[in-house]
């Protein structure tokens, strides 16, 4: 297990290097001189040359790539053209915001999705099964923006139960420590703020989590059905185990493996693709950060943003693979 983990971690190095090379090259070969863009149309020749030298733009492509990677290793992601601030410091709170939202969205998706799938398989062809699978179908096909606007209209405007936007009560902002507001309010031992933070999480989490929830529910159901008909379950039943134990203890452990793959993929998708949800609920996350950067042609931010999202994708895949071998020791590599 340990050897496998180490091997997998080592395998990450070429993957990550390849990613940086790809991202660097794409941005490098976009027409236009970055120094000129950075300085604006009124810059003098001298100023541009000076900046080119500083940024190392007059060096060969390979050398520039080397500098880029060595900067990356030191945690230097460069400077945003738009705000003229360090990208590394700018992106951290946004990553935290996106992580927090994704975490709660997946929590919602997994809890509802897995249980709905299990019960549907358990009570196959019952009214619950039909209803759950009907909602799963609706959930998969629901446009996020429509769901988000409906949520806002019903729960924020008409009923006034939940806030429609932002991560916190902006009249009384939180002093960020980790930028995960749930953790921050716990660290401050401030339970009122914790409740406010959780309230702000409800609507966007549901909007973001609905599609993965539906996918997970369908995946769990079919995987469970397959396992429930297998020989070892018959054996467990023969030994006199109750239905609940059969389903939740013995069947679930094997049925969950394909579901894990889906969960991992969906988490990656959510992390990179929360732009719509983040915009509608004015969630200051990394999706919106990259989207704004694309609108503004802020190349260093686009470059770093894509790299970070790709990195997260790779890490999630790794975690899913490690979980496989933990859950099912037969899976060996």
């Amino acid at each position: 297990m340990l050897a496998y983990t180490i091997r997998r971690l080592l395998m990450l190095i070429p993957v990550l290097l390849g990613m940086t090379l790809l991202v660097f090259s794409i941005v490098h070969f976009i027409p236009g001189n970055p120094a000129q863009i950075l300085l604006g149309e009124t810059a003098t020749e001298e100023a541009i040359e000076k900046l080119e030298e500083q940024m190392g733009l007059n060096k060969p492509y390979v050398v520039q790539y080397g500098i880029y990677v060595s900067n990356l290793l030191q945690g230097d992601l460069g400077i945003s053209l738009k705000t003229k601030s360090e990208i590394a410091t700018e992106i951290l709170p946004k990553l935290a915001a996106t992580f927090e939202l994704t975490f709660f969205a997946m929590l919602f998706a997994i809890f509802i999705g897995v249980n709905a799938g299990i019960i549907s398989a358990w009570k196959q062809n019952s009214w619950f099964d039909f209803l759950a699978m009907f909602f799963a179908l609706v959930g998969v096909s629901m446009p996020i923006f429509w769901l988000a606007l409906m949520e806002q209209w019903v729960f924020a405007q008409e009923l006034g139960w939940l806030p429609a936007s932002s991560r916190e009560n902006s009249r009384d902002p939180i002093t960020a420590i980790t930028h995960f507001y749930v953790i921050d309010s716990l660290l401050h031992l401030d339970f009122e703020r914790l409740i406010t933070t959780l309230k702000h999480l409800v609507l966007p989490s549901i909007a973001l989590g609905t599609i993965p929830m539906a996918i997970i529910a369908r995946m769990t159901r079919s995987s469970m059905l397959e396992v429930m008909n297998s020989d070892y379950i018959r054996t467990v039943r023969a030994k006199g185990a109750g239905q609940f134990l059969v389903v939740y203890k013995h069947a679930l452990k094997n049925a969950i493996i394909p579901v894990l793959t889906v969960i991992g993929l969906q988490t990656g998708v959510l992390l990179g693709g929360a732009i719509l949800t983040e915009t509608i609920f004015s969630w200051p996350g990394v999706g919106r950060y990259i989207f704004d950067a694309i609108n503004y042609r802020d190349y260093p931010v686009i470059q770093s943003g894509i790299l970070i999202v790709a990195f997260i994708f790779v890490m999630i895949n790794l975690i899913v693979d490690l979980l496989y071998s933990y859950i099912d020791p037969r899976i060996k590599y």
Partner: protein
Amino acid sequence: MKKFSFLLVLMLALVLAACNNEASDDEDPSNDSDNNNNEEREQVLVFARGGDSESLDFASTTDGESSRVTKQIYESLLEFDKESFDITPGLAHDWDVEDDGKKYTFYLEEGVTFHDGTEFNAEAVKTNFERWSDPGHKYAFTDEGYSYVIYSIMFGGFKGDEGHVIEEINVLDDYTIEFVLNRPLGYFLQNMAMSYFAITSPAALEQYGPEINENPVGTGPFKFVSWTKDDTIVLEKFEDYRKDGLPKLDRVIFEVIPDNAARLISLRSGEIDIMDGLNPDDAAGVESDDTLVLHTRAANNFGYLGLNTSKAPLDNKLVRQAINHAVNREAIAEALYAGYAIPAVNPLPPGYLGFNDELEGYDYNLDKAKELLAEAGYEDGVEIDLWTMPVARPYMPDPETVAEIIQNDLAQVGITANIVREEWGPYLEKTANGEQEMFMLGWSGTNGDPDYFLGSLLHGDAAGGSNRTFYQNSTVDELLDQAKVSIDQEERAELYKEAQRLILEDSPMVTLVHSTPVLAAQDYVKNYVPHPSTSESLAEVELE
């Protein structure tokens, strides 16, 4: 046993929470999260907008969301009046103009301090202007990507450039500063009131260096507290503000809510106090809501249908006049702006210096249009290309539909308009090159001076640049040149009025509408007055 220990932990947590609440109340009475009474007493205004500020270094950005915030933190030597572009005193309480407009002396307020406690004086003013004008200045931060484009536009370039109007800046004493110009500039005082030329604490420039964009220090009514990018900017009352009794608010929070509909819901549910960027279609709903108030910003723009005067048949004045008669401006204003626009007569918004309100403009008159076309020799009709903008702008929220309305209007007098579509980048490039026949565009004001509209759009020298109608009239050019260097504002007004009369007669464009941006606020927000420049001071705003 397990259940018991869980209960124990839960109880412990509750006790801890209770202790914490008491403790923080005792130690820090201003901690209002635990104390609702305090929250009621504190005057906190939440202003929601569609996008975040780019930078809080006002001179290095042209972004309106930035100046909206810096306007609260910084002050310039002069200020604009609350609702117009009239000049009023700012950090300078008085000023003299000598030598035919080539020397300006400003008398500065005494006893003003920056938020960092250092003193405001003439040296500070000089440092700021040198920072913008001299790319080699130690606080210019050009190596870090700062550039002061707006300075070069308003003052004719940077230090050493041929067109740069500021020759020297002399500190006469601690509270008197003199600007010596190479040549007169009719809107010099107007420039001094722009939020782009406000005064930063030199000590802060020294302390923060290029990070001044995230650590603004000025003399304004509010001082900077924190900035969470893409989320909130928090400002608080500056206790030593130079005007007694101001500001009235304790805190101002600028919050980003990108989605227009979500912003309105947040307003309705009471999470925010003012929102900018209301859809015109939602204005009626806000007006009918008792708890909300609709605010309108004075029109500071206009959208137009440009007629390329260098191409047939538009080189014929009669054809251009005919088109002016054929377009139904009222219908466009009503249909696409939900009434929040007025039909435009002049290429200058109402309220500007020299706005000619004696001109009647062209009425919607199809018979007259047909007559003029016949006179021009096109009684059998004519075909013209109509370029439509690919992007929405405040002065043109739905360009495609406007193009269709115009196409329909023109068809009624026998002009066949073929709609041409282009990407925005090439659109701007090609219309500057003169490849178009009829085209749609608009213009928004920044410093409240008529030269910014008339000089940019209709001076012959600007043809192929911002003058995309390629309009050339030597008399108009002369009038505009005279007005630019004159410092007698009444004389300038007369010159501009005459220029507008000639322009209307020549009709190089169909001035369509001046649009009125709308905002919504809670009814308990008092003394909020939107400024046409999009940046207003919140010093006098209070919550009731």
